[in-house]
């Protein structure tokens, strides 16, 4: 079955073509929605078959299914192929489930869009197709192509309501900001390609037991630079500090797009890239430390901004950035564990968090979409009291909030705890990780608080606006219930069969470093519950929920305290997203615009000046020279005579001297 994994992206792509090209009246249900669901389900079924094979221990990592795309010279052969291992399977699981459910949910959510639905379904099918392509690519270049294509789809779908200036500019912003990361990614690949001459995963990850460094293909410094640059791509795509500000703005798109692209799949591409590059990252500890610092810092920074956001989707967007920071932190710290204690704990924890987060964050976004669909606004200050009117949405969203808040036995608890424990244990090898661990614990506390703040603001109390909210149709609530079920149980992947850790660890094709097998599921569980740190983070999460309960549920708390004195200044900083967005805007408007003016001047006066100058020179020269055409026959004749005399003098006297004093007439015969 694995050889046919390349068919997975083909189904959504066919749907994309059909929706885009079919005549209008043959589009049928929801203006193309039927074809979209067909494409998504086809890919889902194939993905499940592939995942089943992988669960049974089969992988396809030997670069055997491929086709030659480019041949450069004699030796360089760039191929398109598929690479399926346990890591791919995890990504396929998230994409196929969330993708299919989001497309079904769109049938209800996008119902009022009219003819725009055709464009919507076509673009979302293209996105799903290239996202599958991204995770089954067997070399970095192929991955990079799909990487750019998901960026394109993200741009198109953020700007779905392009008549709205804010959506159009948010789309541009997302495209340009992620492009900064993409350029770094490409630069990293160029370095790798220059030294190794091959971008296939199977060649780079040293299946023969020796890494590309110990085989002497690439100096360690260059590999460090290369991995840093490749991680730059992940920073852009996964919205990590300092390139994170595009993701909250991307909420201008439809909520389904936010759920699928900007929460569950595309933004995970950066994490996936980092995880896929792991065999190279563990050779470069400096990069790993950088990865961990970026992740830990982003997690805390984004969590604080989420505290003060009033737009329900922005809360979720910052929460997404924060949770992505967790995954990146887990991967960075996990690398130290791999190097120093041969344990893959951080890597597996981060990927488990990726899977869990895919489910519960898609759930939260779709719930938010359901709420927005009902009340017609994103502003939580205008919601309230929806619990009675939207029972299914409120309960499923509560499940999502508990899952992300980290309360056992829901999914978020397991993976978050594993990530924090991995970070804490890597603190033994570098003190920085203790600081990052503290960041992570603080983030866990803040996450629980802002999630319940959001839930209480939206669903409890009395309605604060006139809108007559009602529960969403079944086509929207059923995907919510399925996702809620997954958010409840996906954390138990740790304990099913041999356990998630053992399953995923086999995907790490490390060279030079032998890995210790992780513990049995039973040991993993007892480890979690015997560690006092588990209770610390759990306790903090509960405290966060209780504080949210006191402030936003129970009456009598004067929230005006947030507007005065030190809390007021803090609140304003948070509402302005720590002024980072403003800094970028100022930078663009002032510094960069100034530079652009200089560049414009240079173009206008120097470049154009040179071109125009040459034209002017030619015209003027002509003006001067044409005076020679006097029409005076005797002057022409005189010039002819003078010319002939000079020619004769030249031939008789100068030419022999040039030819070495010889006699010119003698040289003739």
């Amino acid at each position: 079955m694995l050889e046919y994994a390349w068919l997975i992206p083909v189904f959504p792509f066919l749907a994309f073509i059909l929706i885009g090209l079919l005549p209008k009246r043959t589009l049928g249900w929801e203006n193309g929605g039927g074809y979209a669901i067909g494409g998504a389900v086809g890919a889902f079924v194939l993905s499940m078959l592939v995942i089943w094979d992988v669960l049974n221990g089969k992988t396809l990592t030997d670069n055997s299914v491929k086709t030659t795309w480019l041949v450069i010279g004699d030796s360089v052969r760039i191929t398109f192929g598929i690479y399926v291992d346990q890591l791919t399977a995890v990504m396929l699981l998230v994409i196929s489930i969330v993708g299919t459910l989001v497309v079904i949910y769109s049938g209800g959510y996008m119902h009022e869009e009219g003819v725009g639905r055709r464009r919507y379904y076509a673009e979302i099918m293209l996105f799903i197709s290239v996202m599958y392509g991204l995770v089954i690519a067997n070399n970095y270049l192929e991955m990079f192509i799909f990487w750019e294509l998901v960026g394109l789809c993200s741009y198109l779908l953020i700007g779905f309501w392009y008549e709205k200036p804010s959506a159009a500019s948010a789309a541009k912003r997302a495209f340009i900001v992620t492009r900064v990361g993409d350029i770094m990614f490409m630069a990293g690949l160029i370095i790798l390609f220059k030294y190794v001459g091959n971008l296939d995963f199977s060649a780079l990850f040293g299946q023969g037991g020796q890494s590309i460094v110990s085989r002497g293909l690439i100096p360690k410094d260059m590999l460090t630079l290369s991995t840093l640059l490749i991680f730059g791509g992940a920073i852009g795509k996964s919205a990590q500090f300092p390139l994170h500000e595009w993701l909250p703005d991307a909420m201008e798109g439809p909520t389904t797009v936010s759920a699928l692209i900007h929460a569950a799949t595309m933004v995970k591409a950066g994490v996936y890239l980092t995880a896929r590059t792991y065999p190279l990252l563990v050779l470069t500890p400096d990069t790993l430390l950088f990865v961990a610092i970026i992740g830990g810092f982003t997690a805390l920074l984004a969590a604080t901004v989420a505290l003060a956001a009033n737009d329900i989707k922005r809360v979720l967007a910052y929460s997404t950035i924060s949770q992505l920071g967790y995954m990146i932190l887990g991967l960075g710290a996990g690398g130290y564990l791999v190097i120093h204690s041969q344990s893959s704990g951080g890597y597996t924890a981060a990927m488990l968090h990726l899977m869990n987060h895919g489910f519960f964050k898609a759930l939260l976004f779709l719930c938010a979409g359901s709420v927005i669909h009902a009340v017609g606004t994103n502003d939580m200050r205008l919601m309230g009291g929806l619990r009675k009117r939207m029972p299914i949405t409120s309960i499923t969203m509560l499940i999502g909030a508990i899952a992300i808040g980290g309360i056992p036995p829901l999914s978020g608890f397991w993976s978050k705890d594993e990530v924090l424990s991995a970070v804490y244990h890597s603190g033994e090898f570098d003190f920085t990780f203790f600081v990052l661990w503290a960041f992570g614990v603080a983030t866990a506390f803040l996450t629980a608080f802002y999630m319940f703040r959001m839930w209480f603001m939206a669903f409890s109390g009395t309605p604060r606006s006139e809108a007559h909210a009602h529960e969403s149709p079944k086509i929207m609530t059923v995907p919510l219930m399925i996702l809620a079920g997954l958010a409840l149980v996906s954390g138990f992947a740790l304990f099913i069969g041999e356990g998630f850790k053992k399953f995923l660890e086999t995907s790490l094709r490390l060279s030079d470093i032998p890995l210790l097998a992780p513990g049995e599921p039973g040991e993993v569980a007892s480890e979690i519950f015997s560690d006092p740190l588990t209770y610390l983070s759990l306790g903090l999460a509960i405290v966060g929920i209780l504080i949210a309960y006191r402030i936003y549920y129970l009456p009598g708390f004067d929230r005006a305290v947030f507007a005065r004195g030190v809390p007021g200044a803090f609140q304003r900083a948070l509402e302005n997203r720590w002024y980072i967005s403003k800094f970028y805007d100022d930078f663009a408007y002032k510094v960069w615009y100034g530079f652009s003016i200089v560049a414009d001047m240079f173009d206008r006066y120097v470049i154009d000046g040179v071109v125009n100058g040459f034209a002017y020179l030619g015209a003027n020269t002509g003006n001067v020279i044409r005076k020679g055409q006097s029409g005076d026959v005797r002057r022409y004749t005189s010039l002819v005579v003078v010319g002939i005399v000079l020619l004769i003098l030249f031939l008789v006297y100068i030419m022999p001297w040039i030819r070495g004093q010889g006699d010119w007439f003698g040289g003739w015969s």
Partner: protein
Amino acid sequence: MIPVEYWVIFSSLLFAIGAYGVLTRRNAIVVLMSIEVMLNAANINLVAFSSYHTTLHGFSDASGQAFALFSIAIAAAEVAVGLAIILSVYRRYQTIDVDKINILRW
């Protein structure tokens, strides 16, 4: 037999006189006459070298003389055309002063 150098000097002088006439005269007919003088200088040169061929190689070669005959015939035709042009110029401008006929310019 007159040595060939004499002929060469003679034809050079004739040519120079013709050129001087072309350069200094403003009357188009005189210019045309001067051109004829230059042509005849060339003809004399051709005939002189044709005769010198016998002195040099011991047998005669008449091609120089044949060229001269052609040249004379063509000169006659040229004079006819030239005079016709001058005549029509005169009809148009009431002058044959070449300095005044200068409309073919920038």
